[in-house]
């Protein structure tokens, strides 16, 4: 179960990205919203959703929304989740958001992330606004009925109350060391 509840503040992080820069929570302060998504390379649920993540970033960048993906998986048991492989995936899929490595798994543990992908959406004040899945259909993007993350972003940006602020994250378990 996630350690953060709706209304809680984001937990700070400082992690290396596939762009060889260190990224921290502070750099996203001032954005209209920040979606921290626990992710990875090897999980088929992530792979099924990652084009949608790229599209969401593209659609909402102009509205001041930033996505950040964090991979905390143990790469000794899951070598596809290593930092070099993350760099490859980011290039291959043309990620338009930072993809960060949480080698010690401290950030994932602090957030209480359980699955990949698992979204924590924070508002301008870095308060948790939505937690859970990206949408309701990992298998088929054209069969999605509930666009949870997009709905949360739209509601947050327009200052309207959110109908669904929490959903069950669906995906692979985070691979702990």
């Amino acid at each position, binding site marked *: 179960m996630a350690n953060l509840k709706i209304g809680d503040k984001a937990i700070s992080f400082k992690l290396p990205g596939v762009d060889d820069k260190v990224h921290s929570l502070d750099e996203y302060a001032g954005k209209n919203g920040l979606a921290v998504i626990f992710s990875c390379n090897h999980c*088929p649920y992530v*792979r099924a959703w990652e084009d949608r993540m790229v599209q969401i970033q593209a659609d909402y960048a102009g509205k001041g929304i930033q996505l950040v993906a964090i991979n905390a998986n143990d790469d000794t048991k*899951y070598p596809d989740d290593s930092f070099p492989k993350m760099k490859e995936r980011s290039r291959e899929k043309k990620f338009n958001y930072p993809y960060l490595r949480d080698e010690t798994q401290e950030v994932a543990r602090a957030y209480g992330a359980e699955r990949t992908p698992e979204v924590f959406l924070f508002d301008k004040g870095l308060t948790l606004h939505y937690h859970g899945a990206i949408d309701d259909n*990992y298998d088929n993007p054209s069969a999605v009925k509930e666009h949870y993350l997009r709905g949360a972003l739209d509601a947050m940006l327009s200052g309207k109350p959110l109908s669904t602020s929490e959903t069950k994250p669906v*995906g692979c378990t985070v691979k702990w060391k």
Partner: protein
Amino acid sequence: MKVRFFYSEDCPSHDEALERLRKVMGEEGIRDEIEVVRVDSSEDAEKLKFIGSPTLLINGRDIDPPTNPYYALTCRAYRLEDGRISPLPSETMIRKAIRKAAAEGS
């Protein structure tokens, strides 16, 4: 026809995959029982040559034979007919495997 279904509780698509397998088997007139095997540990994954959840074997053959098998307690990615990656095998994939096994058995 010998149908085996291997899964891990960690991968949420297994219920839907089993349902899909049952549906396609029904449509193809296959009434054999499905042997459902839960894989709980990395040791079991090695022992059972389990490459990810869900894995479907028809007469001992994987419905989507891996080119470079790696045995681990993990979720499995299927490349669908349209190129997308999914945690679920498609109905077409299952149907092809069943028809191939049926043709070989007749």
